[in-house]
């Protein structure tokens, strides 16, 4: 029941996002345009629909990736955008693109390498992973990658630099059907795989020992889930740039809205709603400036980080 309401709300939001922008469409115009088909209405079918589809898939993908990391490490701070995985993916993507290769492959490599590095650095002697160390190492990784990224952008020519800058802020402004299809495809395959592991994650959250007692093979599950989640986040970064804080915020919000526990489907819906809302704000609030959606997600996400910190400090968890 709750899920039906959530999905309906998300669809309504998507429809609103289709209608919003420099030119606002009324319900009739929107319906007529949709009915008219791909060749009938350029504004809806070629400009807005790919953005909405991309926004929904990217939000869902980033949200899922974040929730998997947060459960796996049992720490709400351990999402890929805080621990440097998205920055690593951005670094790899820009590097390979400037060298003439495919941004997607570079992003995947960068994200996976960063993940492998911070996980191996924070292995404790008993074979477990210390989440607090992982978060700190990840922040260091993120700083390093951002600096390398800035250097590459400044050294590149003006045209390439301009493109890279827009992408870095995290934006859906230059999305067309190919990008939207890519994002939707990756989210559908990897995301479904991850969402299917919800019960495993639920048990991993209980602690390493209890998870083992439930028969979960941590040695196999942990690297598999982390790799899948890192790949998903990296692919989303390759399409729309590092949209700040989506991965970080979606999981905990969904947890609060749902019954507790990982709630991966809810997380995907929350992430999708967050990115769609931010992209709509980007188009509707200041149509002449076309601010990147990443600015709006950051303005929602940073206060949330502050809230999480104060709460954990007050309750003595940090």
């Amino acid at each position, binding site marked *: 029941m709750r899920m039906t309401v959530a999905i309906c709300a998300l669809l309504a939001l998507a429809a609103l996002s289709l209608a919003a922008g420099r030119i606002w469409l009324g319900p009739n115009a929107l319906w007529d345009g949709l009915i008219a088909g791909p060749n009938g209405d350029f504004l809806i079918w070629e400009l807005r629909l790919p953005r909405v589809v991309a926004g929904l898939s990217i939000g869902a993908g980033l949200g899922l990736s974040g929730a998997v990391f947060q459960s796996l490490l049992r720490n709400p701070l351990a999402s890929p955008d805080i621990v440097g995985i998205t920055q690593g993916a951005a670094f790899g993507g820009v590097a390979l693109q400037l060298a003439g290769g495919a941004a997607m492959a570079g992003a995947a490599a960068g994200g996976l390498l960063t993940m492998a590095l911070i996980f191996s650095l924070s292995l404790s002697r008993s074979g477990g992973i210390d989440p607090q160390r992982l978060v700190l*190492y990840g922040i*260091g990784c993120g700083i390093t990658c951002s600096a390398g990224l800035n*250097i590459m952008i400044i050294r590149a020519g003006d045209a390439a630099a301009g493109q890279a800058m827009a992408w870095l802020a995290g934006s859906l402004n230059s999305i067309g059907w190919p990008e939207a299809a890519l994002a939707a495809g990756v989210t559908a395959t990897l995301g479904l795989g991850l969402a299917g592991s919800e019960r495993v994650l639920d048990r991993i959250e209980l602690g390493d020992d209890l998870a083992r007692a439930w028969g979960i093979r941590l040695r196999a599950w942990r690297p598999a889930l982390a790799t899948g989640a890192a790949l998903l986040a990296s692919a989303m970064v390759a399409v729309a740039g590092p949209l700040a804080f989506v991965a970080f915020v979606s999981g905990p919000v969904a947890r609060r809205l749902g019954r507790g526990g990982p709630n991966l489907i809810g997380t995907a819906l929350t992430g999708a709603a967050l990115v769609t809302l931010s992209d709509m704000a980007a188009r509707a609030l200041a149509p002449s400036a076309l*601010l990147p959606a990443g600015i709006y997600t*950051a*303005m929602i996400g*940073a206060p949330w980080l*502050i809230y999480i910190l104060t709460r954990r400090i007050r309750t003595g968890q940090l």
Partner: protein
Amino acid sequence: MRIRSHSPLLILAMSCGVFLAAFAASLAFGARSIPVATLWQALTAFDPGDPLHGVLRGLRLQRALSGAICGAALAGAGVIMQGLTRNPLADPGLMGVNAGAALAVVAVLWSFGPQDVPAIALAAIIGAGLSAAAVWALAGGQEASDNRALTIRLPLAGTAISSLCLSMVAAVVLLNTETRDLYRFWMVGSLGQATFDTLTRLLPVFAAGVALALAAARGLDALALGHDVAAGLGARPARAAAAALLAVTLLSGGSVALAGPLGFVGLIIPHLVRGLTGSATGLTLVAALPLGAAMVLACDTLGRVAARPSEIAIGLVLAVIGGPAFMVLLSRVLRPAT
């Protein structure tokens, strides 16, 4: 021979020697190298007709001086901040100082248009102070039970405040082209636009900062023994902490105003110096000033030589070196407890 047996004088002489070498290198190398003999002539017997002399006196000297002052100020701020928080990872940049200063500068440029140097500097200093205070409060600095807790909380709180400030900066800058053009020059952290005029106007800020830092050093040493012991020794903990915070704000804010946001000098230099001097804050501070200057000058020279004939902004060079350094320090700090 143990390293700690070095006398303070020897340490000071060594750090001044390193600083002078870096200063000379910063004058000599660049888009075009200048031989040492010419360097000396230009400084002692200036010949207006010689183009190399012109480059040196006109551009490189003011650049090297600004770099030296920024580096010294940042290293000093780092020493004081690490002493105050008793946290070896405290660094003005990680505490959100740069982002706060950036937000304040952008807010001023946006509301009032192009501004004189003192106005920008004042904005940067106020912004830096406010964000440092916010990070400190958010991390629960005053009531933190132990150093390990603070080690984990401070970088997180810094990340939170920084990203909040930076997203607002990005919004303003993207909405307003005029502000963007003014801000762009400033944001990467570069010594390229520093002039003698800016430098002389900011000197009082740096002087006041160093004086306050020196005055706070003894109080910080007493504070390291704990609040009660410090009070028993006759120190006034609250006053020392206030002086230290003000010193950090003046030093890092002044440096942000002069060269834009530069990170990691305040993190790395105090560590290197403490290896030589031990834990006395006063001596560490005095030795860190020339070494911080040397680090900024060396990185600036590196950025100019590596990308000849253009240059890589110093802020970026520092970040590329500083990120890995942060991780190495982290592993050393966290090891004993795990």
